[in-house]
């Protein structure tokens, strides 16, 4: 049985092979001291681990109020290239995720669960497939289906994922009024990140009080983080929310004195090196306009150039646009070009900075989804955080990164326009 106050929770008994159903039930034997699932979920204060941080119990209540067929979708797409946590979770404890999905299905009255994993990662697809197969002989609970959408940054966005299940295209949908119920056909759909489902699985076995033994009062529980950047090889680990960020970085042997750390994901923002004593939880990060997001910590060392790294990321994010909305389809590539001009420096660079600021204001909030908003947030944060590097570039002086040719933010290779797959 796993104890309340120590880690690991989600990675308990983790191994090089995923836990079988029997091992899973042995590791996570319930204590029996749990009340109604709904009450426990609400008392736990669990918020989504996919990036938005929306209270899970509120989502469940919203779906409970809907009538007709319902579905639960487990989002294991992991659109963030710097994140690897959902893949790792599904490769070590897939049954915990499926348990949580089953509990969510029972709470809202859904008869089918769709587990979505990107098809570009066949190893993880295999693990999930085997786990679903192991559960097949059970006669109770919802039926599980494995789906494999193509991997795209926006394919993990809720409305894009549901639209792919509904209409076979990973395109985000316009949602005019919040709260907006996503539907597959006519069925209301609850979409939750794989890690969120796993946490629901834990709460269902051990209760809200147990869950809240870790983390902070406002942001309880544990979270899986992916540390990349200035580290010898990228690490995925489970930490208690509220741990100071320096502690997290030290425990994995990342650069102890970085220039800045990117939090959230590529649509997130930077935390300066001086402020790394901040506890890793939403309420402590809020004054910096940051959040835990998808659990990404990308460490930028002092020898790296913030401008070039930002430009590479924005160029890729622009390429990953669904190209449905003009401000995103045209605006993001324009931001990438402006950043390239800033990197080149000179008088064009000065004009480019002004254009960047204006364009950010114009693009923000004018897409159907939050993709352009994220890029704008990232660009604004980069301009503020790397002001020194930018000055150096504009003056044509060598910047911090001129001493190193290595890139620290992983950016997948750009595919040819005609080869992008959305179906």
């Amino acid at each position, binding site marked *: *049985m*796993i*104890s309340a106050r120590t880690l*690991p929770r989600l*990675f*308990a*008994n*983790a*191994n*090089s092979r995923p836990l079988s159903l029997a091992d899973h039930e042995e590791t996570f034997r319930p204590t029996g001291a749990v009340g109604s699932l709904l009450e426990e979920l609400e008392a736990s204060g669990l918020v989504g681990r996919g990036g938005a941080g929306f209270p899970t119990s509120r989502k469940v209540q919203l779906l409970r109020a809907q009538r007709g067929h319902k579905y639960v979708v487990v989002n294991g797409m992991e659109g963030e*290239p*710097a994140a*690897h946590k959902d*893949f*790792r979770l599904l490769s*070590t404890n897939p049954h915990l995720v499926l348990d949580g999905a089953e509990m969510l299905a029972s709470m809202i009255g859904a008869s089918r669960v769709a587990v979505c994993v*990107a*098809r*570009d*990662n*066949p*190893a993880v697809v295999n693990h999930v497939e085997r786990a679903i197969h192991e559960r097949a002989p059970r006669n109770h609970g919802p039926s599980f289906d494995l789906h494999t959408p*193509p*991997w795209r940054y926006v394919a993990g966005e809720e409305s894009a994922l549901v639209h792919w299940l509904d209409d076979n*295209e990973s*395109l985000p949908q316009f949602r005019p009024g919040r709260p907006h119920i996503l539907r597959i056909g006519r069925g209301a759909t609850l979409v939750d990140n794989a890690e969120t489902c796993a946490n629901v699985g834990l709460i269902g076995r051990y209760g809200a009080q147990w869950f809240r033994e870790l983390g902070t009062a406002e942001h309880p529980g544990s979270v899986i983080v992916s540390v*990349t950047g200035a580290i010898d*090889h*990228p690490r*995925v680990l489970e930490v208690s929310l509220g741990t100071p960020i320096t502690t997290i970085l030290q425990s994995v042997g990342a650069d102890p004195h970085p220039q800045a750390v990117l939090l959230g994901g590529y649509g997130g923002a930077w935390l300066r090196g001086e402020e790394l004593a901040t506890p890793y939880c939403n309420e402590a990060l809020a004054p910096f306009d940051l959040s835990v997001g998808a659990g990404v910590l990308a460490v930028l060392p002092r020898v790296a150039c913030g401008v070039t790294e930002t430009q590479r990321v924005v160029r890729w994010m622009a390429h990953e646009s669904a*190209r*449905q909305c003009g401000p995103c*389809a045209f605006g993001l590539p324009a931001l990438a070009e402006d950043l390239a001009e800033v990197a080149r420096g000179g008088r064009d660079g000065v004009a480019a900075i002004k254009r960047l600021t204006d364009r950010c204001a114009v693009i923000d909030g004018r897409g159907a989804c939050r993709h352009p908003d994220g890029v704008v947030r990232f660009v604004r944060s980069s301009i503020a955080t790397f002001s020194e590097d930018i000055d150096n570039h504009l003056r044509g002086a060598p910047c911090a990164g001129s001493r190193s040719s290595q890139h620290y933010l*992983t950016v*997948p290779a750009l595919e040819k*326009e*005609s*080869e*992008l*797959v*959305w*179906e």
Partner: protein
Amino acid sequence: MIALTTPYLWYTTRATGIVTMLLFTAVVALGTLVANRVGGTTVGRFEFNEIHRSLSVIAMVFLVIHILTTILDSYVSTGVISSIIPFTSAYKRLPVALGAVAFDLFLAVWISSLVKLRIKNRSWRFIHWFSWLGYAISLVHAYMVGTDTHHGVGMLLVVACAGAVALAALWRFLGRPTRAAGRTALSPLASPPVVAPRPRVPEAFPRTPPRPRPRGR
């Protein structure tokens, strides 16, 4: 059924036929101007759209007159059915059939535009593409039914209209908005690219397993 054998019905059919052809040429040309985002300085873009819409109504009126006079005229035996269902006319089966097909297509386009605010925009666009097909068929009908169009001014008009619309089609094709192919183009000919999925090689994450944790607790 009124059986009239005055030559004026026959003249009206031919005249309204030519006028309809000219009007629909203008409608298609204006539609191309709208699609290629012409205007905004002296003439507003919305004005081209409005003229396109208004002119299409006038063109449909002339088309209906053209059909009615053909039906009413008993000099040539074409009934009401022949205007909608092809190959049911005794007189000049093929050309009248083509006319019927063109009319059906134009009718579909027109009705879909009347209820444009009530139907999905995708459906409306899909039907609207068929206006090109309807126009092409109507030109063939105009040439084949041929009382005036085999020689002289009539033929010149048909050729001029065909040329104008061909140019418009080329310009429409060249000026089409740049978007990822297939996903936003709703023409019946559009289709998404078929590419075999490539496995994503995780660049940064080697497949090293996590350190084994002590069992039992």
